[in-house]
Each structure stands twice: as structure tokens, then as C-alpha cells.
């Protein structure tokens, strides 16, 4: 059975989809990712779909699911590298991926994840400081 690898990088999980997605594979990725978030207490998930040529309603739904599921588990998901043709097709299909954070490329996606997580951390830090003082 094919599997999409999930890499851990500090507080983030990194997924690069390099193969043609089909339904089963996308579903497995969804459950693998949510479990990895739980296991590693990751704060962010970055999904690179720059090599994905086709996102239809099913895969689009899975991407939305992943973003929602990880959010409930206190991790942010950013989808990066969507091809222009895929974006055009998704919107015309009627699936604008509302609620999914996106960035143009991996670098910008990482930067976005970092800012999202630092703003979380700052809240916690203020709590910590008050404890020390």
C-alpha cells in the first residue's frame, strides 16, 4: 500500500504530496496526519501540493477536513504551492476551500506557520512571566 510520508521538523509536520492522489490515499493521509499531530504535539502542518495536478471535490474535501481536524487539535494547517490551473478548477467546481490557510510556496508557508505559532506562544509566555515574577 502506498503511503504519503509525513516529516517532523521541530514543532511542524511537513507533507509533500508527490504522487497522484486517489481517494483511499487521501483518506489515509487524513487519518495519519491527525494521529501524527496527536503523537508529536505538532503546532503546525504544512502540506505542499505543488506536484498535484488534480484536486477534485473529494480531495478538496479531505484538505478541508485536515485543516479543520488539526485546528480542533490545536495545530494550524497551511496548504502551499497550489498550481494556478488547480485553483481555477477548484473555484469553478464550486469548492473555494474556505477556512483553509494557503501560501504561495513552502518558504512563505513556513513563515506563515511561524507567525501563527508565535502569536500563540506570546500569550503563553505572558502567563509564564507572571509566574516567575
Amino acid at each position, binding site marked *: 500500500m502506498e503511503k504519503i510520508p509525513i516529516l517532523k521538523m521541530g514543532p511542524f509536520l511537513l507533507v509533500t504530496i508527490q504522487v497522484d492522489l486517489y481517494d483511499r490515499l487521501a483518506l489515509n493521509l487524513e487519518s495519519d496526519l491527525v494521529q501524527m499531530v496527536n503523537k508529536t504535539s505538532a503546532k503546525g502542518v504544512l502540506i505542499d501540493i505543488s506536484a498535484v495536478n*488534480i*484536486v*477534485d471535490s473529494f480531495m478538496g474535501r479531505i484538505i478541508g477536513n485536515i485543516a479543520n481536524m488539526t485546528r480542533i487539535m490545536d495545530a494550524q494547517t497551511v496548504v502551499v504551492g497550489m498550481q494556478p*490551473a488547480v485553483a481555477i*478548477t477548484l473555484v*469553478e467546481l464550486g*469548492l473555494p476551500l474556505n477556512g483553509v490557510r494557503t501560501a504561495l510556496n513552502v518558504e512563505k508557508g513556513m513563515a506563515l506557520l511561524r507567525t501563527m505559532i508565535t502569536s500563540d506562544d506570546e500569550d503563553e509566555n505572558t502567563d509564564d512571566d507572571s509566574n516567575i515574577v
Partner: protein
Amino acid sequence: MQVLKEMDVVLFRNRVKEFAVRIKMGLVNQTKLITAASELVRNMLMYANGGKVLIEIVTRGRDNGIRLTFRDEGPGIKDINLAMKDGYSTGKSLGLGLPGAKRLVNEFNIQSEPGKGTTVMIIKWANG
């Protein structure tokens, strides 16, 4: 070409792409066509346990196009108008498959007889 299981879908999408490339279809139209094909082939697998797809190159004046005909012998669709509505699904999907596929192609024709099966024909012109 026969599509009976989920793994056939990837193969089928690649075949459609080969044909689209052969008639020099642009990347955006290719992506729309393959996405529409992907939706329709999923319907066929989910509701009718697979079926057959015919891939053809068609010509209209100076324009070439790809015609895909999806034929299954599944349960058929009782109310096609309802099935073509956004957000309607008898399964647990988003209900975007049929109406979404229609928006992505130039011509869309669906015929269905309950108990006998469903045939969907789509055409995407290379410059359409």
C-alpha cells in the same frame, strides 16, 4: 477503457491527459477536463460498482476536443434535475460532483434509467 476499482482512476486520468496533450489542449482546460472526469468516474465507482469510459477525439470546424462517455449499469438516477443541483447527494459527499463537472466542461449530457444504468457524455474543446 474499463474502470472497476479505485486504482484504475489514476490510470484513467493519465489516459485522458495523454489524449488532451495530443490535441494540444491548454493546461487549464486539461485540468478542468481531468477534474470533471475524476468526479464522474468516482460516481461510477461509488454508485454503480464501475463501468466503461470511452475516450474520443472529436472535431468541430477547426477546433479539436475530447469526448468522454461514461456508461454504467448501476441503479440509475431517479431524478436527474435533483442530482444536478449543487449540494444534493444521496451519498455522503458534498454533492458537487455532477453540477461541478458540468461547469468544468463545454458540453454535458446525462441519461439515466432507474434500474438500467446511467450514461454521461462530456466534451471539452481544446480552445473552449
